[in-house]
């Protein structure tokens, strides 16, 4: 087994009084592909957002490459929290994220979208950034769309830009949040193939998805969540044959 | 001598309180009357803008441009001082102020009403026509009630503006709150105190009216949701009966 890259320890998250995640424990080794499945509203997206602290968890900690990240919850720790918040961009730069609704920046061309992180986060000069961005966009098959603005791109192309934007920073782990659910059916396979390629290149990935075929084929482990908790974790085979009633019910509802 | 004078002295306010309250009443009356006539005028102009006759549309368009472009201050002076000289109609102060407020706000409201009417889904009109309703019935029973709900918040905001604008009527001597405050401030030589209190009175009026509007808005929203639910229930019953 590879060494652990990312660990969630007792992570909990609420919005106001609404508890969205509780007691999340998960250990992810380098090179693993963990797929997260579960009913709508079970907290899958929130789980991903906790990993890179876009939605900072109130409870528990996230350990990334041996370093612990957590937020202090007393007002007395105001200064400590400011310091930790100032460090967050460093963590996020090592973690790529791709969203359901692409979130490409509409006021920038494809290549500018990719270059932004390279110049402003990695501090590369424009020429260097341009070169890397171009390579990144070519890899996802957009070599001929470098200077297009997002409005002129299809959903699938936008999602490729978003993937290239994340990959260009050379992240150690990639988070995918239902990245094919907003796509027209004929565009889904292309994006899934892109993810397969990444997985076989050894990228560590956490993938929230409803594409069960993809999950069963590519995942090293599958996490089933319900009501803000991890109900069961297992290899694809274990999940396929699970006896856990909620997981069974969920699987039969989407596999038909 | 100066040391005997307190730095802040709100006692004169108390002495002038009945005058101030009366002025406040006149300010509110002017704003309410102004907005009332503005709504009537605005409706007419909105209908003209949606008319099928080009002339009416053009007149209505110019009307809105005129009264949205002219500053209230100029309009008030023009009506009160200008018209007497040129046309010989001598309109007293308060009516002059109300006319100015009505004209100015009608320019904005006609645009509000027009877009409210246009915002009602076209399918609603078609559905009404499909039932065999006449055009005026479609307007009266289907389009206007829905548009009404849309225009409540912007009309409320216009009313709030009218309350604030009414302070300008003091320049033609309408004895509203601001005029009283000016007179009393000069009499007691306490401008800071009087203008502060005048400002706070306007503030209270504006905040109360705004609160009232958002409450009304919420009630209308609830009402429309209930109606939609009720009608979908009705649909179900019909289809069950049919099936």
């Amino acid at each position, binding site marked *: 087994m590879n060494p652990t890259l990312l660990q969630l320890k007792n992570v909990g998250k609420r919005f106001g009084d609404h508890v969205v995640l509780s007691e999340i424990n998960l250990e992810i080794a380098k090179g693993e592909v963990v797929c997260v499945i579960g009913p709508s509203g079970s907290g899958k997206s929130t789980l991903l*957002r906790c990993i*890179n602290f876009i939605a900072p968890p109130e409870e528990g900690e996230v350990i990334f490459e041996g370093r612990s990240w957590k937020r202090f919850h007393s007002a007395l720790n105001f200064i400590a929290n400011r310091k930790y*918040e*100032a460090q967050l*961009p*460093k963590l*996020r*730069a090592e*973690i*790529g*994220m791709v*969203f359901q609704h692409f*979130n*490409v*920046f*509409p*006021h920038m*061309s494809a290549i500018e979208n990719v270059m*932004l992180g390279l110049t*402003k*986060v990695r501090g590369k000069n424009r020429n260097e950034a341009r070169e890397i961005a171009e390579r990144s966009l070519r890899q996802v098959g957009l070599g001929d769309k470098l200077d297009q*603005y997002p*409005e002129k791109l299809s959903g699938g192309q936008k999602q490729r830009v978003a993937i290239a*934007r994340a990959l260009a*920073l050379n992240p150690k782990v990639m988070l995918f949040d239902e990245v094919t659910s907003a796509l027209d059916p004929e565009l889904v396979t292309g994006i899934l193939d892109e993810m397969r390629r990444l997985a076989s290149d050894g990228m560590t990935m956490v993938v929230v998805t409803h594409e069960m075929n993809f999950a069963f084929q590519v995942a090293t482990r599958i996490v089933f969540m319900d009501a803000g908790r991890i109900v069961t974790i297992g290899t694809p085979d274990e999940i396929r044959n699970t006896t856990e009633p909620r997981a069974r019910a969920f699987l039969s509802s989407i596999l038909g | 001598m100066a040391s005997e004078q307190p*730095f802040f002295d709100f006692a004169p306010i108390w002495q002038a309180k009945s005058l101030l309250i009366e002025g406040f009443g006149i300010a509110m009356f002017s704003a309410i009357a102004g907005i009332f006539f503005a709504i009537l005028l605005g409706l007419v102009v909105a209908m003209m803008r949606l008319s099928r006759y080009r002339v009416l549309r053009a007149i209505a368009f110019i009307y809105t*441009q*005129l009264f*949205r*472009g002219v*500053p*209230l*201050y*100029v*309009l008030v*002076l*023009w009506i009160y*001082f*200008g*018209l007497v*000289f*040129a046309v010989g109609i001598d309109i007293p102060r308060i009516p002059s102020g109300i006319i100015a407020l009505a004209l100015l706000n009608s320019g904005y409201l006609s645009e509000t009403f027009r877009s409210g009417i246009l915002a009602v889904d076209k399918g609603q009109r078609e559905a009404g026509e499909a039932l065999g309703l006449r055009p005026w019935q479609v307007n009266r029973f289907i389009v206007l009630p829905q548009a009404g709900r849309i225009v409540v918040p912007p009309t409320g905001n216009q009313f709030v503006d009218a309350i*604030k604008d009414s*302070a*300008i009527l*003091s320049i033609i001597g309408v004895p509203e709150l*601001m005029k009283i*405050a000016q007179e009393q401030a000069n009499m007691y030589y306490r*401008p*800071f105190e*009087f*203008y*502060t209190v*005048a*400002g706070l009175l*306007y*503030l209270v009026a*504006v*905040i109360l009216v*705004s609160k009232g509007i958002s409450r009304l808005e919420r009630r209308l929203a609830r009402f429309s949701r209930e109606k939609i639910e009720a009608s979908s229930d009705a649909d179900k019953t019909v289809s069950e009966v049919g099936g």
Partner: protein
Amino acid sequence: MDGYQYNWDVVWQSLPELRQGLIITLQVSIVGMALAVVFGLLCAIGRLSQYGYLRKISIVIIDFSRSIPLFVLLFWVYYGLSLKFSINLTAFQAGAIALGITGGAYMAEVFRGGINAVDFGQREAALAIGLTQAKAFNLVVFPQAIRIIIPQAVNVYVGLLKGATIVSVIGVADMIYVAQYVSLNSFTPFEMYSAVGVAFIALTVSIAGLAYLLEMRLNRGRSRG
């Protein structure tokens, strides 16, 4: 009604003074707008802050500034504040400050609306690639918000321009001041105020037209990027 003799010559004769007055109106309104932008931006930042007390304070400031009539603010600043605290404000300065306070409240809402109109996912995506909060705002959120903000800011400016007419009551020699002065001597308020009205309508209509063109351009710019 014994056949009023219109005397439009007076208008033509006082054209230079009227123009001078118009320039002063424009100056007051532009300085007021500049103050409004700064004040509005500060309030909007407070309003969108993550700290509850800052949000509350900003809301109170915005509500106050928006609810008190410009006319009252003007008198309060010019006669009230400056006398009470012996700050020697000129009528021009008092006018600009009053306009800045009123306009600032509106600008705060314009800024806030523009920033909120940008999809929340944009900020998240910017943070996710490791940008700091400040860079995410400056490089990703604000450039998108500004397209929404500019046309509305022009509308606020038109409002301030019209509002600026009242500074003549505290003795700023603007267009209305000139019109009042001239018509007192020549008994031609109708002509003078008509002229001023027409000038303002022309001005506001053309600014609104420019704003419209600008908006179209910004939107076209959007499809080009």
